[in-house]
């Protein structure tokens, strides 16, 4: 160091710029060059000024910047190209392995995409209403009942609006009983989607009008709105506004003229109720015989009541005032009645109460499907981890070479993570394609209108992109860190052993996890199917086989049943015929029944239906006490009822026959008690039911018991007779057992979806096992060859190979069974009538997994056992 330099004060260059310089310079240059830069910087300061030095230093760096960037991009591109080349070579060389690695996650991702679409759709129900957060459905707990009911009294809606300022709007909604015949000109169709609603309806819900005036749309009696779809069906290109359409009414037997006040946009499918025609609610005053007073009464429960609350109202606070409200309108004996507000958006996933407008879904279903999606993804990605670890020995030489020529650990980690990411992204692309292909089939299976448009569902794409990236990185990280930690010297000396004990434990535990999930899914599948079979085959208490059902609206036929019945009975293949208001599966009307018990007045809600003389015979329902309706007792036509056992029990008399009941003010005599039968779905207990004899009116259904041997001919016979007796009305026969099956559609759907998903899960697990077995086999090739030379036969070798997996499987079964039992016993609690979870389910699920696994492994074992030992020993 010279004297001059010692006396001098030296300046540091700008530190940030210096840092950039350090980054940009290659390792071998840092010392010399950055020193040089600093020296020149100091020279500038000496000769010129600090500012000039600063500018020079920065200029030097900035001038190099574009070059530096293009350089580094170029070289990382070169590296990437190399990685890709190696990746593609490996992909081609190990086709089976690549297939498993892509197909597994692809199947997993497709399943979870489908499920997510479904779940998203389920959550979208009723959310499109502008006021959705402030709309509530009023639930009532009827007297003596312990479950909430969605039906309420007619005057409730108006009274709520009058008494509570918090209730801004309120409406009643009621579905027309059964179907009606809608007529315009020559067009005449049975229509199911006819609803009644109050004027506020359109202001509460967001069902926009295409044309027509909203404020008066539902004001006057006999006003009608219809949907675009229906407008097209009946009017074609005509403008329907102001036109008159006729609807035939169940209540009044008559045809009524309705004036069309507006056309609604089609109702979105993700609504908890959908309708085609909307009639003004006050129309009902004219339809019912008793007029307005018979409708506006607090004595029975019929419509659903919806309210729109003030946005700043706490619904809980409002509910607190309901007790006083009910007492005001229903008197002191309303003590045990309750009222509750159910948010609109909770309805669809809130499960089914009785008398829902349409079948709802259930939160539990969502949980179940989400769990499946999650588990299938896990199985698929566990495959990746397991196979990569098992196969890492194959890559060891490559890793060794890379390390020798200077790759550092982080580069290798990046390479292997990148590979798993590519696998994952390939899987994503394939699954997007696959989902597009199977979506229509899946939609029809679960009966939802699912669509996938990636541009509209950006959130969906984003979710799956992040799942893919996350799962790809996560599943790639263990193999990546394992592989990058290999010591090149060990690899080259061939002392590296992947098949060490600890990694075998790791591998096997992943296999166990996969089989645990598979076996749980199998248990679920079996239980669901058992329950479905149980429901299908359970004795419902009435005969449901070979019963042809025919619906009619023909009043002429209804008034004059006997000749038709007689005519049909002439055919020896027709064993019986009865007309009734409901089929045993469609009974849903209820009314308050009053009676005296030990001098005390009592009342309860009971279902009722109308039947004729032959109902109990055709359906083979036993009369326990008393007698059936009979033509010998003329009074039966006016005041006789038959109860079911439950109703009789509820009334509390030892012998109810001969006692009296009051329904809506009219007096009835009990003449008999029938055995209970399940007239509702098996989700529920049998409810009290009152049979009323009701001649010549309002019988909607014929139930015709036919001989099973000659059904097509019998049907043709019935149709022929139908055409002579009821020429104007269509003949639409159905079978009762099919109608019953429809009730359990949700369960059936669940069952079918579970079948598919379980099969896929098991397939992915076995796919993984197949790959794993084939790689481990390769490691054991020498061992097997030596054993064969020493005299091991085919059986020995198969057992040797399968033993390890069977141990895993056994462990998995032991873990999975209790979980499956727990989950499914919770599910079964949905049903009042349920099958048990027998030991055979567990044995069967274990056995099935065992067979699957054995088949998978045995292919490999056969290959190994039949191979010539010389081939694998020769090169030594």
């Amino acid at each position: 160091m010279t004297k001059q330099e010692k006396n001098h004060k030296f300046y540091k260059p700008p530190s940030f710029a210096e840092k950039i310089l350090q980054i940009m310079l290659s390792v071998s240059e840092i010392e010399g060059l950055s020193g040089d830069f600093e020296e020149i910087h100091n020279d500038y300061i000496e000769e010129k000024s600090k500012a000039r030095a600063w500018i020079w230093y920065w200029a030097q760096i900035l001038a190099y910047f574009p070059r530096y960037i293009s350089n580094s991009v170029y070289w990382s591109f070169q590296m990437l190209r190399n990685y890709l080349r190696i990746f593609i070579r490996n992909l081609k060389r190990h086709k089976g392995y690549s297939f498993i690695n892509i197909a597994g996650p692809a199947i997993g991702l497709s399943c979870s995409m489908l499920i997510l679409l479904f779940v998203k759709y389920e959550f979208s129900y009723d959310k499109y209403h502008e006021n959705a957060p402030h709309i509530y459905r009023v639930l009532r707990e009827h007297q003596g009942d312990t479950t909430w009911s969605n039906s309420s009294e007619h005057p409730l809606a108006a009274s709520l609006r009058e008494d509570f300022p918090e209730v801004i709007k309120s409406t009643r909604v009621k579905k027309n009983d059964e179907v009606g015949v809608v007529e315009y000109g020559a067009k005449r169709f049975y229509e199911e989607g006819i609803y009644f609603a109050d004027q506020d309806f359109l202001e509460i819900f967001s069902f926009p009008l295409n044309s027509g005036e909203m404020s008066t749309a539902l004001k006057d009696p006999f006003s009608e709105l219809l949907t675009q779809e229906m407008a097209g069906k009946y009017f074609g290109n005509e403008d329907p506004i102001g036109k008159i359409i006729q609807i035939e009414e169940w209540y009044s037997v008559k045809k009524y003229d309705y004036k069309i006040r507006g056309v609604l946009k089609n109702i979105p499918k993700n609504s908890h109720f959908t309708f085609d025609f909307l009639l003004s609610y006050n129309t009902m005053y004219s339809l019912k015989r008793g007029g307005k007073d018979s409708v506006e009464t607090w004595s029975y429960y019929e419509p659903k009541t919806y309210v729109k609350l003030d946005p700043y109202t706490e619904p809980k606070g409002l509910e607190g005032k309901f007790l006083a409200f009910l007492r005001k309108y229903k008197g002191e004996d309303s003590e045990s009645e309750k009222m509750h507000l159910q948010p609109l958006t909770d309805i669809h996933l809130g499960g089914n109460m009785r008398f829902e407008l349409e079948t709802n879904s259930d939160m539990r279903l969502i949980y179940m499907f989400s769990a499946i999606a999650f588990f299938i993804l896990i199985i698929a990605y566990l495959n990746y981890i397991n196979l990569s670890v098992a196969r890492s020995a194959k890559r060891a030489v490559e890793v060794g070479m890379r390390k020798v020529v200077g790759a550092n650990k982080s580069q290798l980690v990046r390479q292997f993570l990148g590979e798993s990411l590519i696998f994952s992204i390939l899987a994503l692309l394939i699954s997007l394609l696959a989902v597009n292909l199977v979506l229509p089939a899946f939609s029809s299976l679960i009966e939802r209108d699912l669509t996938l448009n990636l541009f509209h569902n950006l959130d969906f794409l984003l979710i799956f992109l992040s799942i893919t990236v996350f799962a790809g990185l996560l599943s790639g990280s263990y193999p990546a860190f394992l592989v990058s930690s290999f010591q090149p010297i060990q690899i080259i000396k061939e002392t590296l052993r992947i098949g060490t004990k600890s990694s075998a434990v790791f591998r096997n535990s992943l296999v166990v996890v996969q089989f645990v999930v598979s076996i749980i899914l199998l248990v679920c599948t079996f239980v669901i199917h058992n329950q479905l079979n149980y429901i299908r085959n359970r004795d419902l208490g009435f005969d449901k086989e070979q019963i042809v059902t025919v619906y009619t609206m023909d009043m002429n036929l209804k008034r004059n049943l006997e000749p038709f019945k007689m005519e049909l009975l002439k055919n020896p293949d027709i064993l019986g015929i009865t007309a009734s208001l409901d089929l045993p599966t469609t009974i849903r009307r209820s009314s308050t029944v009053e009676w005296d018990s030990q001098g005390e007045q009592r009342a309860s809600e009971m279902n009722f239906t109308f039947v004729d003389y032959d109902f109990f015979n055709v359906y083979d329902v036993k009369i326990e006490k008393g007698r059936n309706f009979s033509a010998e007792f003329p009074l039966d036509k006016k005041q006789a009822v038959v109860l079911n056992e439950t109703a009789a029990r509820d009334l509390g008399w030892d012998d109810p026959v001969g006692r009296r009941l009051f329904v809506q003010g009219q007096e009835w005599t009990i003449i008999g008690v029938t055995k209970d039968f399940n007239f509702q779905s098996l989700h529920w207990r049998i409810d009290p039911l009152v049979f009323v004899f009701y001649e010549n009116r309002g019988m909607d259904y014929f139930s015709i018991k036919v001989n099973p041997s000659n059904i097509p001919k019998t049907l043709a016979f019935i149709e022929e007779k139908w055409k002579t007796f009821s020429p104007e009305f269509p003949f639409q026969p159905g079978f009762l057992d099919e109608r019953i099956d429809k009730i359990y559609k949700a369960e059936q759907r669940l069952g079918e979806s579970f079948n598919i998903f379980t099969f896929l899960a098991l397939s992915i697990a076995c796919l993984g096992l197949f790959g794993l077995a084939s790689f481990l086999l390769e490691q054991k090739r020498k061992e097997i060859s030596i054993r064969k030379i020493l005299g091991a036969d085919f059986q020995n070798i198969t057992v040797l190979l399968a033993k390890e997996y069977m141990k895993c499987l056994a462990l998995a079964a032991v873990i999975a069974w209790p979980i499956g039992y727990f989950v499914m016993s919770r599910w079964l609690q949905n049903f009042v009538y349920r099958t048990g979870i027998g030991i055979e389910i567990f044995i069967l699920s274990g056995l099935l997994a065992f067979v699957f696994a054995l088949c998978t492994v045995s292919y490999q074992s056969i290959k190994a056992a039949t191979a010539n030992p010389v081939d694998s020993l020769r090169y030594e």
Partner: protein
Amino acid sequence: MYALTRNEEEILLTIWNLKDDAYLVAIRKRINVVLEKKMTIGAIHIPLTRLEKAGIVESYLGEATPKRGGRRKKIYRQTKLGIELLKRYKKKRDTLWSNFSEEFLL
């Protein structure tokens, strides 16, 4: 035989002249002063790297000074090959220059 550019030739000669102090900054300064031109660092460093790669010069790390922020100098010197090359170039140049006399210019 490696063909030197004019620039490389100048750098090589400067290294020869500077002896043990032939590092980048010194080379640049010397060239700028003697040849009266302004050369950027890159204009020196890139040919130097090229020469080093070709085995004409070699480098070692020398002393550190406070002016350099305590970093050591990267000092260049000719390899045997480099000296051979210089000798050859001198011969050629001398031959070329030998008949040149200032009188002709006037």
